[in-house]
């Protein structure tokens, strides 16, 4: 655990922050709510200066050298004295995989360091928001709780986040974290069959005909389980679940950071909810979580 926040002892913890393309553009609401959550928990996010796209699905699918060099540039930009926080599960894997190549292959390291003209620290801690969150004592989360999520029935949706390639098998896993934290904050987390079913990622854009049945199965499963909303860890999953569902009965999908920010009493939540394609406002009003 790289970030041990202790109540009272440290006021603010500095972290470098890699937003990734989704949070910087289509999912600004996830980004803004994450900022609010971090503020409430005493985490100081310092955006990585001039970060670039990690290469997404397309770089590794098409070109091996791009799949290394694109994330390597970001690694070369990260100061080694503080962990690099990543919110997108997919960006996290791309950055971790590039770091693995660099730490195991001295030639690749030299090549990337020469290319970017900066040293790359193979020991840089790259952490997902969940890893930071899991290191924060429940008492600190409870102290930040302003608006208990009482009675809100949620299903946790991890998508492919819990599945890693074999080389990252020993990295930390976050199974159960959404359930644990939301239950702690007063919500009711339900069991269902689709918490780790892939949302279809880029096929939602390239082949909507393939993504639609996948998404319908996921949303249908959530409705059948009795959920009032889906809480997701990934901004792309959230978008896909919202835009590719063709069922009549659909429920809102909230990013984990949005629901945490709501519980922690952050201001500005209405602005985020306006950006959803499946409006969560009626549900949140009925639950008296917003006015």
């Amino acid at each position, binding site marked *: 655990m790289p970030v041990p926040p202790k109540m009272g002892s440290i006021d603010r913890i500095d972290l470098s922050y890699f937003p990734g393309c989704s949070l910087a553009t289509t999912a600004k609401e996830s980004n803004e709510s994450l900022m609010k959550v971090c503020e409430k928990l005493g985490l100081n996010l310092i955006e990585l200066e001039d970060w*670039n796209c990690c290469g997404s699905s397309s770089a590794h699918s098409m070109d091996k*050298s791009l799949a290394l060099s694109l994330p390597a540039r970001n690694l070369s930009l990260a100061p080694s004295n503080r962990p690099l926080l990543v919110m997108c599960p997919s960006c996290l894997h791309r950055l971790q995989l590039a770091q693995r190549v660099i730490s195991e292959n001295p030639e690749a390291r030299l090549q990337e360091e020469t290319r970017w003209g900066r040293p790359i620290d193979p020991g840089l801690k790259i952490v997902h928001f969940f890893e930071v969150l899991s290191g924060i004592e429940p008492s600190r989360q409870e102290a930040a709780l302003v608006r208990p999520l009482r009675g809100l029935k949620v299903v946790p949706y991890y998508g492919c986040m*819990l599945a890693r*390639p074999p080389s990252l098998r020993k990295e930390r896993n976050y199974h159960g974290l959404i359930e644990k934290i939301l239950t702690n904050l007063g919500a009711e987390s339900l069991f269902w069959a689709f918490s780790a079913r892939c949302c279809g990622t880029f096929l939602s854009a390239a*082949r909507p005909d393939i993504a639609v049945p996948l998404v319908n199965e996921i949303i249908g499963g959530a409705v059948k389980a009795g959920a009032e909303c889906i809480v997701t860890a990934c901004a792309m999953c959230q978008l896909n679940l919202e835009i590719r569902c063709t069922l009549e009965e659909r429920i809102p999908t909230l990013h984990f950071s949005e629901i945490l920010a709501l519980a922690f009493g952050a201001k500005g939540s209405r602005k985020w909810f306006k950006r959803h394609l499946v409006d969560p406002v009626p549900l949140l009003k009925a639950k008296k979580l917003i006015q």
Partner: protein
Amino acid sequence: MRAMDYHPHAVFRLVQLGLRKEALESSTIWICVSCNTCSIQCPAAIDIPAIMDALRHMAVEEGVKIAQPGIVKFHEEVLGSIERYGRTHKLEIMMRYKVRMRQWFQDMDLGLKMLSRRKLDLTPSKIHRVEEVSRLFAGSAKDGKH
């Protein structure tokens, strides 16, 4: 709906049997999104998405008949966006992709809805030193052969 012509394990069998053409021309290698659902279940810890990547690279390099040319076009548009801006500009990627696919009106209502909710930005989020990133693309597999 079955988008993969072979299940992932069947693609591996094709590879083991040396059925190169069948493996490289399969639809599966392009439909696979590398979600790793299969690799965490594989008792031999085979990095299945990494092998799918290798097969995709071989398919492009060897110029075989690509089973899912649309998906290749999509990847090319994503990489083109990274080359131009250092980041992905989703609206432009989608518009260019739909034009290349001649799907002029598919998802147009969705796009308008997303614009009205400010889910899509009209202008790209661009990095300052974009030439650093653009340089990487000289001679890469991206430049549209398909």
